[in-house]
């Protein structure tokens, strides 16, 4: 569609193509030109060949010497009065070319850390499409840079330096201790108890689970040991840590007790055998459908206490159905929690402590996590009394999906009981929050000040999406942050509010980095001018929702990229536009560049190709 003068200015260097027929003698204006935003699609459709096309800034004001039709690229032979514009050599991801500019950044950002001259690094990060980022190279990078430049530049930017060097007194707001109890065997017995490293689950508890929920018609418990991983299972609705609070501690602080080596797994169908899933489901052999070691997935070697819940026919796609399946399963978990509360400290095998550290004077950032709130299984229980429990929690759908502020430690302590089980590859299981990589990465980075985490539900209706999104904007505005992350799970419908969150935050002048599964299948359906900084969570080989549990969820490697990107954007660096098609090489290149700079290798997680091939994958995907 024709563009405005403003758009023409933004796209001054892009090719000039007529949007409509223009007659001989027409003086080219912005309104004659097609929007460069759709060129990729037009080229893909074979509608457009941009060879020899002049740029928009060259053609504005030039006169057409021949009547040309729509989608005609403007070339020198049909125009007179072309503006001569010096075309600079294309600036690509050549770190050397960017080095001097970055020098300045370097001086601002990293002087306190180490007096090593750096270069700037352009990083290309994959999204639905791909993205370039520039990263200040802190440590020993940028051989091409003249060291002597650094101090001079540093002086030239005194404000920045002062900011960076402001004596930052770290402040521990609160702490959370996790006590780990090792479980090596799970058995059934007359009562639920833990003896040494053996967990017993009371025989017959199933009937109580069934009776506790009107919509639950049946519930089976299977204890899956590693030898039994090649067992058929209905779709996996959730993976949960088995944890409880100690004494008077509340979720997010004090002491949490957690069992190692065992997890709860909720699976189920409705009475007609329909999987409780929406876009795909992960039923099949467990070892073929679980992406091991994702934050939200089981670790290889863990024992699963797997419930197979049957809910009343037809309730799989209504809110009460999936909720009943979760609540029934929690009946078992709660009984284990009661037992855990009595455990002796002698059984503790490991203790870890998480400090919520505030770093005044550092760049203040917030993490906005969009969670699903469309209803049915797209719901989350927020802030239960016990980690990933049910009791005391409020479903975010009932809360109107409005944004809720939580501390990073509340996230890591199971404040979200996730009902979102689909599509399996991109949704965040309850366990994901327990090990949330972005929260961990940002919380532990000494260069930024993580002020908190905002959860915002993704409602079904667009009007409600914008309603909650505007609240996110206001909330982030009040926090006076320097930057924000927006993450989402799944793809499609939720991208509407995901985009709106970017807009609401971006329009307040706050740099924002988005994280989502996009790649091929999850390519963003909407966008706005604030969505320039994106990190793609895709891991799958083909860039698709492959129905392998947690395959495409946010992992440490994504958190590292996102944090690097936000740091750069907060320093005013531009992130290069995405490539026109998903290109997995962008991510690997960027990761390599980051590890070159930081000196720390970034280990990429495996994808579904490391799993035995399932029949479904063979037929549908690979």
């Amino acid at each position: 569609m024709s563009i405005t003068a403003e758009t023409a200015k933004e796209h001054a260097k892009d090719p000039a193509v007529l949007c409509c027929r223009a007659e001989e003698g027409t003086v080219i204006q912005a309104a004659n030109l097609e929007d460069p935003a759709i060129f990729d699609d037009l080229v893909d459709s074979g509608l457009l060949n941009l060879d020899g096309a002049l740029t928009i800034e060259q053609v504005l004001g030039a006169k057409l010497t021949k009547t040309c039709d729509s989608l005609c690229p403007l070339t020198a032979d049909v125009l007179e009065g072309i503006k001569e514009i010096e075309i600079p050599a294309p600036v690509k991801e050549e770190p050397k070319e960017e080095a001097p500019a970055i020098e300045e950044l370097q001086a601002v950002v990293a002087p306190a850390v180490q007096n090593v001259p750096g270069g700037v690094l352009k990083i290309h990060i994959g999204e639905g499409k791909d993205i370039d980022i520039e990263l200040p190279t802190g440590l020993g990078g940028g051989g091409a840079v003249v060291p002597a430049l650094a101090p001079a530049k540093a002086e030239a930017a005194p404000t920045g330096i002062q900011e960076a060097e402001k004596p930052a007194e770290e402040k521990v707001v609160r702490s959370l201790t996790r006590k780990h109890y090792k479980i090596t065997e799970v058995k059934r017995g007359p009562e639920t108890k833990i003896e040494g490293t053996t967990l017993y689950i009371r025989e017959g508890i199933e009937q109580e689970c069934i009776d506790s929920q009107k919509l639950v018609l049946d519930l089976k418990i299977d204890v899956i040991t590693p030898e039994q991983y090649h067992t058929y299972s209905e779709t996996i609705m959730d993976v949960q840590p088995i944890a409880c609070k100690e004494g008077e501690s509340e979720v997010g602080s004090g002491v949490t007790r957690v069992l190692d080596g065992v997890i709860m797994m909720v699976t189920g169908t409705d009475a007609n055998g329909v999987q409780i899933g929406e876009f795909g489901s992960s039923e099949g052999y467990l070892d073929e459908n679980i992406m091991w070691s994702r934050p939200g997935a089981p670790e290889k070697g863990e024992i699963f206490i797997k419930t197979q819940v049957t809910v009343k026919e037809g309730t799989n796609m209504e809110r009460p159905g999936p909720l009943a399946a979760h609540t029934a399963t929690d009946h078992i978990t709660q009984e284990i929690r009661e037992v855990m509360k009595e455990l002796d400290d002698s059984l503790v095998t490991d203790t870890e402590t998480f400090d919520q550290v505030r770093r005044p004077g550092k760049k203040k950032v917030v993490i906005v996590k969009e969670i699903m709130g469309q209803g049915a299984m797209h719901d989350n229980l927020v802030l239960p009394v016990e980690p990933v429990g049910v009791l005391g929690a409020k479903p975010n759908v009932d809360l109107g999906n409005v944004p809720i502020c939580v501390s990073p430690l509340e996230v890591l302590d199971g404040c979200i009981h996730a009902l979102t089980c689909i599509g399996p590859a991109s949704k965040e299981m309850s366990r994901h929050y327990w090990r949330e990589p972005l929260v961990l990465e940002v919380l532990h980075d000494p260069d930024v000040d993580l002020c908190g985490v905002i959860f915002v539900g993704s409602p079904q209706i667009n009007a409600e999406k914008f309603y909650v999104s505007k609240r996110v904007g206001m909330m982030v505005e009040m926090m006076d942050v320097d930057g924000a992350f927006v993450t989402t799970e799944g793809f499609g419908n939720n991208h509407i509010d995901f985009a709106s969150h970017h807009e609401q935050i971006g329009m307040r002048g706050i740099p924002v980095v988005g994280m989502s599964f996009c790649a091929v299948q999850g390519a963003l359906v909407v966008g706005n001018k604030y969505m320039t900084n994106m990190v793609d969570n895709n891991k799958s080989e083909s860039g698709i929702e492959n129905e392998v549990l947690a395959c495409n969820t946010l992992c440490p490697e994504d958190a590292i990229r996102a944090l690097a990107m936000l740091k750069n954007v907060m320093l005013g660096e531009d992130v290069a536009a995405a490539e026109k098609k998903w290109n997995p090489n962008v991510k690997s290149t960027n990761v390599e560049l980051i590890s070159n700079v930081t000196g720390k290798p970034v280990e990429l997680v495996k994808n579904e190709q490391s799993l035995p091939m399932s029949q479904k994958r063979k037929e549908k995907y690979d």
Partner: protein
Amino acid sequence: MGNLQFLLRQHVGAPCEPVVKSGDKVKKGTLIAAPAGLGANIFSSVYGTVQDVAGDRIIIEPDKVQEEEFVPIQDGSHLDMVKEAGIVGMGGAGFPTGVKLGTDLNGGYILVNAVECEPGLYHNIRQIEDNIEMTLKGVKYCMEISNAAKAVFAIKAKNKKAVETLRKAVHDEDNIFIHLLPDIYPMGEERAVVREVLGKLLDPTQLPSAADSIVVNVETALRVAEAIDLKKPCFSKNLTVIGKLHGGNAPHVYMDVPVGTSVEELIERSGGIDGVYGEVIMGGPFTGHSTALDVPITKTTGGIIVTMEFPDLHGAPVGLLICACAGNEARMREVCTKMNGNVVSVGTCKNAFEMKNGTLKCQDPGNCPGQAQKCLQFKKDGAEYIIIGNCSDCSNTVMGSAPKMKLKVFHLTDHVMRTIGHPLYRRLTVSKQEAQLPNGK
């Protein structure tokens, strides 16, 4: 002659209030309904008896013998006579002319809309050819009433005979000129006329008065002259009947058809429908709507078109490109249904501006804002066919991308164009620029 039906709403504004009752004898020119707010008087177009005053209409049974003589309107100022005569914009918009001409133009322009842009209609041009004298009088009255210094006839250059007639007529008129227009659709939209003649593109919310002008349809001007010179109330309409009729698809142009006459009667007078047909349209191919045979004509009816049958898409997925220059979404969907298509995607032209009342107006009539993105959308949504109602320029743009994307293009007017033997709206082959007459004469 069958019963006549006078709709109480034949104009922009509120329906009129009936001032006659069942059993009343009426003459040609008897006031039968008066405005209850913004509106215009409605007069009987025949001698006869009121059969019924029901809901939205008054039904009159005509006498067997009809005289030419009519009940004259009251004498008064020229503006009052225009108001009294119940004249409304006869190009189709139906805005009360008495209100329109009440604007003081302070030496501005009366733009006479003789574009007759809807293909297949001929009565405006015929009027110029046959009755220029009275038409010109009307234009002068309009100038006088609204205090305009100049008048410009906007007419398509292709109407050579009418242009010649006009040239002769305005030759010795100091303040009346002719502006020639190219044969593309739409040129007759009010703001298009202002833009073409005065070079000023109005916002969709602006009236021509923002460019010191009033646009008056050529038939409206004629009715103004009739009201002032002949004291004749506005109760008749010029129109064209065309289409799949016995005797061929040549146009039947009727002058002074009594308002309230049924569509069926006019079709019968034109030979009757020839065999199976697609639909009957009241109005032009672009902006008209399907109608039933028993529907009466009003002061704004310009055309009655009987079309050939619709093609059958056998339920194929269809994208609709809605714009302001043709039928609205409901009309587009209606045609899609009649073609047995299944709407899978709806796009709206970037230039279609939604007015407060929900109707669409084009921001720059006849100048395309680009359509490639819409075609990409249709393709993405799985459409195999698209139905467009676009203007000449936009249709041309659609043709620049849709076929290459393997989208088969239908135009809303295709069934009419095929019926009347007019080229389909696809590629634009003529220039949008038209050479002007020396000094507009």
